[in-house]
């Protein structure tokens, strides 16, 4: 069978599963006894194995199978999680990731994983190297106890809204009984939805189902595992009801809990509460269908924590996957529409027919909305970059023997896809830098009177037309003297200059090419490629990096990025017969100067600006414009631009106005032209070049 058509789906889903495996493993590591997490991990692994086997990726399936074996022991409490197991499972995940990567690049997804498989098998045999102190097999508690506890935990899964709660309270006041039911369907059941329907049908005959989890709709569409829970109001006695439900064929177990006012309140409001704090349900009766009570309870327990673990997770938004190329096509088509709209507006204003003007105006409003949507479509939450960092930081900290927490905030902040694609590497670099050079080893931290565990904060937020990503550590801070000594030694600055530099300027030296402050070159950072690469990457994205630091307290790297690279605000200007666009972000102000204010100094021209002099650059000469020369004018319009804290003025003929422009590339044929960063299409259909002001200031 040709599987190619499913391949991309397989890759997408595998990546999702791997990501969730990584996240859950980290979660489990910080909370190793939470079997709910193990369940989620197990399920992800299981799905992955199934998909891999179906697609014929034997190695992938085999390795996943071995990992599943270990997880199976853990979830059945035959094995307690410990460091060695975590490390082995993480190694397994890495191997899986590289296999999927290989498949993505058209490979067979084959890899030699015998070493990992052996360790996994050893773990299953109970053969754990030194350090695994507790005897794993004996660690398990009798199966019945956790089953009961989990059932209670599970019963806290469903949250009621105010209305539903008041309905239940009212019915209770009127003498009805409020029940909470967990229904599990047999694993081998083929038509779960039908069985579930029969349960609902039966219940509806004697009372009302107030709420179910998953929702009735999902259940009807077969979108549930093997069990569901519901709130039910009835006048029937639960003891009578239970056998009735159980008698429906292929129902494995039914667990009915009668609620009183207090337990209702606690249950429905509960998902965040600790399991230990669970209220004793007023009345709990558990029975299972025919065969045997005890064994049936175990699979029930297996299914239940799934729901418990699921409840606190945010509801997944409904999405479809769209090919990126299609989005690009959409963007291009839209920008054509935008150009036609401007043209149409011009024509309409010339013709002056009210009906036409109205229509064009309306079209203008619609297209503004459309522009917002189209731009939003390209926005991706930074989480897609951030989500691999917790794992990376964990591994790093381990290899450096440091203790640290990574705190991520604002992962939902959105950025243009083009920016997201590029920003990953620089952030990895900055994070590595913070972990390696920022946060001190445990001993140093204790000596400095700090907490053993260091903190690295990674946060993202919007501000105006920019997104800021900050990486802040509570480490040793930047030592000004060390930086300067190093910079002087490497010939980046001279001693004289060094003495007069402000702290911020000193910190910027970190980004100078060929600079590395680490005294010992570790394999983490300081491999010759320094922060200068980070800076040049971020600058090429139209962003900046700033550093603030306090010695002994910590360092903060702040990366400022433009929201989008596809539509920007720009000032359109004219020089002779040519039109150019200057990005608004680098314009300080516009103005007019008189010819006699311009001073010549060593062949360059200066103009007074505020209380200083700034260079005046002639666009007509730099770009060799044939039909304009500002030296023949009495007054010249100028645009003051900024790069960092340096200013310069560009002489132009006149200003056309401010506009939203769509960035276009000049095509791959043309060699890069200094001073030109791209092109845009104006309302009249002509191409205008976009000036790169950074190239004008040295």
């Amino acid at each position, binding site marked *: 069978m040709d599987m190619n058509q499913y391949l991309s789906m397989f890759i997408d889903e595998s990546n999702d599963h791997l990501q969730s495996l990584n996240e859950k493993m980290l979660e489990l590591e910080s909370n190793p006894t939470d079997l709910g997490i193990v369940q989620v991990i197990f399920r992800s692994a299981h799905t992955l194995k199934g998909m891999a086997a179906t697609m014929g990726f034997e190695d992938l399936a085999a390795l996943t199978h071995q990992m599943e074996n270990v997880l199976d022991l853990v979830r059945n409490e035959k094995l307690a999680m410990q460091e060695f197991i975590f490390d082995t499972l993480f190694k397994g995940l890495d191997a899986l990731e590289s296999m999927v990567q290989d498949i993505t690049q058209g490979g067979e997804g084959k890899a030699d994983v015998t070493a990992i498989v052996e360790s996994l098998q050893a773990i299953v045999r109970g053969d754990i190297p030194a350090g695994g102190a507790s005897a794993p097999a004996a660690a398990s508690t009798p199966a019945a106890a956790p089953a009961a506890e989990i059932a209670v935990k599970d019963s806290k899964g469903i949250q009621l809204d105010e209305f539903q709660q008041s309905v239940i309270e009212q019915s209770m006041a009127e003498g009805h009984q409020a029940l909470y039911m967990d229904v599990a369907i047999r694993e081998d059941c083929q038509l779960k939805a039908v069985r579930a329907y029969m349960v609902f049908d039966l219940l509806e005959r004697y009372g009302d189902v107030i709420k179910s989890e998953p929702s009735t709709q999902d259940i009807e569409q077969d979108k549930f595992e093997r069990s569901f829970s519901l709130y039910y109001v009835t006048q029937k006695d639960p003891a009578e009801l239970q056998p009735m439900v159980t008698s429906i064929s292929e129902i494995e177990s039914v667990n009915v809990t009668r609620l009183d006012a207090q337990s209702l309140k606690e249950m429905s409001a509960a998902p965040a509460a600790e399991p230990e704090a669970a209220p004793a349900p007023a009345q709990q009766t558990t029975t299972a269908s025919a065969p045997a009570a005890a064994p049936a309870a175990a699979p029930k327990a297996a299914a239940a924590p799934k729901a418990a673990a699921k409840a606190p997770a945010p509801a997944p938004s409904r999405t479809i996957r769209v090919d990126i190329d299609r989005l690009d096509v959409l963007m291009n088509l839209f*920008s054509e529409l935008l150009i036609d709209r401007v043209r149409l507006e011009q024509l309409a204003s010339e013709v002056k027919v009210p009906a036409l003007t109205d229509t064009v105006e309306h079209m203008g409003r619609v297209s503004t909305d459309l522009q917002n949507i189209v731009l939003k479509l390209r926005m991706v939450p930074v989480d897609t970059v951030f989500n691999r960092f917790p794992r990376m930081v964990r591994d790093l900290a381990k290899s450096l023997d440091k203790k640290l927490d990574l705190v991520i905030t604002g992962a939902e902040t959105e950025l243009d896809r083009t920016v997201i694609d590029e920003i990953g590497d620089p952030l990895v670099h900055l994070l590595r830098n913070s972990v390696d050079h920022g946060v001190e080893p445990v001993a140093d931290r204790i000596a400095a009177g700090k907490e053993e565990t260091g903190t690295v904060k990674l946060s993202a937020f919007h501000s105006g037309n920019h997104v800021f990503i900050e990486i802040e550590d509570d480490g040793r801070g930047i030592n000004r003297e060390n930086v300067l000594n190093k910079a002087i030694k490497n010939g980046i600055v001279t001693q004289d200059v060094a003495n007069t530099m402000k702290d911020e300027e000193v910190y910027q030296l970190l980004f100078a090419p060929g600079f590395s402050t680490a005294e010992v070159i570790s394999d983490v950072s300081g491999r010759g490629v320094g922060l200068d690469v980070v800076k040049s990457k971020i600058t090429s994205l139209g962003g900046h990096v700033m550093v603030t630091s306090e010695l002994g307290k910590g360092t903060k790297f702040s990366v400022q990025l433009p929201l989008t690279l596809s539509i920007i605000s720009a000032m359109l200007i004219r020089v002779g017969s040519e039109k150019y666009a200057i990005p608004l972000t680098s314009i300080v102000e516009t103005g007019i100067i008189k010819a006699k204010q311009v001073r010549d100094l060593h062949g360059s021209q200066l103009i007074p600006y505020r209380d200083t002099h700034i260079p005046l650059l002639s666009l007509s000469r730099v770009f060799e414009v044939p039909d304009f020369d500002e030296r023949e004018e009495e007054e010249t319009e100028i645009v003051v631009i900024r790069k960092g804290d340096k200013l310069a003025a560009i002489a132009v003929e006149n200003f056309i106005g401010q506009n939203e422009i769509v960035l276009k590339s000049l*095509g791959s044929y043309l060699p890069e032209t200094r*001073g030109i960063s791209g*092109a845009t299409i104006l309302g009249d259909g*002509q191409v205008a*070049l976009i000036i790169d002001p950074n190239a004008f200031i040295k």
Partner: protein
Amino acid sequence: MDELKVIVFKLATEEYGIEVDKVQTIERMMPITRVPKTLGFVKGVINLRGVVIPVIDLRGRFNLPSQEYNDQTRIIIVEVEKMQVGFIVDSANDVVDIKRSSIEKPPEVVGGVKARYLDGVAKLDEERLLVMLNLAEVLDKTEVVQLESIED
């Protein structure tokens, strides 16, 4: 396939051909935005239905004497290796089928154009010769860039 469909265009005295599947479209002359400080024969960029495409003056590229553009002037948009470029030519008004076997090795120079830019010469009939362009060579900039940098 022995037959080859070819777009025929005129440049100075000769007729040239480009395989039809490399040609995207043929446009009348349209406003060109000059790109400063770039290769001499690059006339600038045009907006072709929302895509910015650089245009080359083919006379300039082959160092032929330049000529005023008129209503016969055409821009042929070709696409080679995902790269779109427009050629300004004197006129373009024919599509012909030629046999592959009829294409012969080009002589050293045809109509002032060096052989390295040519794929071959095909005889259409007794009087008409069609010079097949080697697009990859025409679009190769390394030689030009080297020349220009020497001139600097």
